[in-house]
């Protein structure tokens, strides 16, 4: 999405008919036509071919940073035709789902087991990942894709563990989509047989709708949030296969009712598995690692 006016699109199948604009930092080597009502033109317009979609998202901030905050504007088509009604009946998410299917095939071919971690901001996803990587890195090759609106702080924390990480900045975007993740996979030097963790933008609503090509969505909920969160945000808990109830070390100081929370999650999604964990003390993490490994062995390879 355009960070200047909020217009523009983030998902485009072919990069062929949606010319973009590049305000400021991006060096997409294409410009965009001027359409009525679109009013900021302070960026350089470079000649380009719409048939050439080999542009390579070379953003010049930081290595390993993809910034989707600088998006494309619309197009204007001249001419007149006859009025008619066209029946389409296509799923609105079909473009995203097609990218997700491509990602899924690509991950399978590389024998990579991918998890999409979703939660509200502050649930402890990054701390959980840092701990998980530290505990599992001698056993599995691990890579991470980090999604945030701004900054590469999370990817920096992950890289400090020694695992390769790519940061996607979504700009005004509230979720990762499969197209962004496809580009992140281009950037990530991911070893065959790896575990891949995708840390989504902290948001308990929007990421639920967007398949990224992962094997499973894992929803992280911390005990400092309400135990009725699964009922208040049912889409996310319905989309996830595992709920991690994090920060269990704080339970003695809180009135949080664990069994009520687990019951709420089960009510929204009778198939969801739940584990109570603490990224800080390590409590319950052995069960999380077992959950991962039971599924990962079918796809990825442990370090010999």
């Amino acid at each position: 999405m355009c960070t200047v006016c909020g217009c523009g699109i983030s998902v485009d199948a072919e990069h062929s008919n949606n010319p973009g604009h590049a305000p400021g930092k991006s060096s997409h080597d294409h410009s965009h036509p001027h359409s009525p009502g679109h009013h900021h033109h302070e960026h350089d317009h470079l000649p380009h071919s719409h048939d050439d979609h080999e542009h390579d998202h070379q953003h010049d901030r930081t290595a390993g940073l993809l910034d989707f905050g600088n998006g494309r504007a619309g197009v204007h088509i001249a001419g007149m035709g006859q009025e008619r009604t066209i029946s389409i009946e296509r799923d609105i998410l079909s473009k995203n789902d097609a990218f997700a299917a491509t990602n899924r095939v690509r991950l399978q071919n590389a024998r990579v087991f991918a998890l999409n971690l979703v939660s509200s901001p502050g649930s402890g996803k990054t701390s959980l990942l840092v701990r998980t990587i530290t505990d599992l890195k001698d056993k599995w090759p691990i890579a991470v894709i980090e999604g945030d609106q701004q900054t590469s702080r999370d990817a920096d924390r992950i890289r400090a563990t020694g695992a390769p990480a790519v940061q996607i900045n979504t700009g005004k975007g509230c979720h990762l989509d499969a197209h962004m993740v496809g580009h992140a996979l281009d950037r990530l030097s991911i070893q065959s047989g790896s575990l891949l963790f995708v840390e989504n933008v902290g948001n308990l609503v929007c990421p639920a709708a967007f398949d990224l090509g992962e094997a499973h969505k894992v929803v992280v909920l911390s005990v400092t949030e309400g135990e009725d969160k699964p009922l208040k945000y049912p889409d996310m808990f319905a989309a996830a296969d595992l709920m991690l109830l994090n920060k269990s070390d704080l339970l003695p100081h809180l009135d949080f009712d664990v069994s009520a929370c687990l019951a709420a999650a089960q009510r929204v999604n009778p198939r969801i598995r739940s584990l109570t964990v603490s990224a800080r003390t390590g409590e319950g993490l052995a069960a999380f690692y077992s959950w991962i490994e039971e599924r990962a062995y079918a796809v990825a390879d442990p370090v010999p």
Partner: protein
Amino acid sequence: MHEISLVESVIALIEDERRKQGFSRVRAIRLKVGRLGHAEPEALRFCFEAVTSGTIADGAKLEIESVPGAGWCSACRRTVPLEERFSACLHCGKSYVRVTAGTELRLAEMEVE
């Protein structure tokens, strides 16, 4: 506000269709939005004008058909209406119901010229 992305996806589908069918303007767009799905009709309407501005769908009228939820009750062994994803059966009141309708999010048709 992922509804912005959803409207952007609608524009991408319309662009696909324009390449196949050749039209220059979209007068109306009809969406089918399930009541148990991921999109809020009011939020779609709210961002529609801003997101379509300057695109092939600039000025198009947005019509949203709200599709009611339904599910299969394994106790009653029949399809029952569903107001919320995790509601109990309206008839027997005890069993959990498996969602069978109301999660759609589709571009149904459009008027073009």
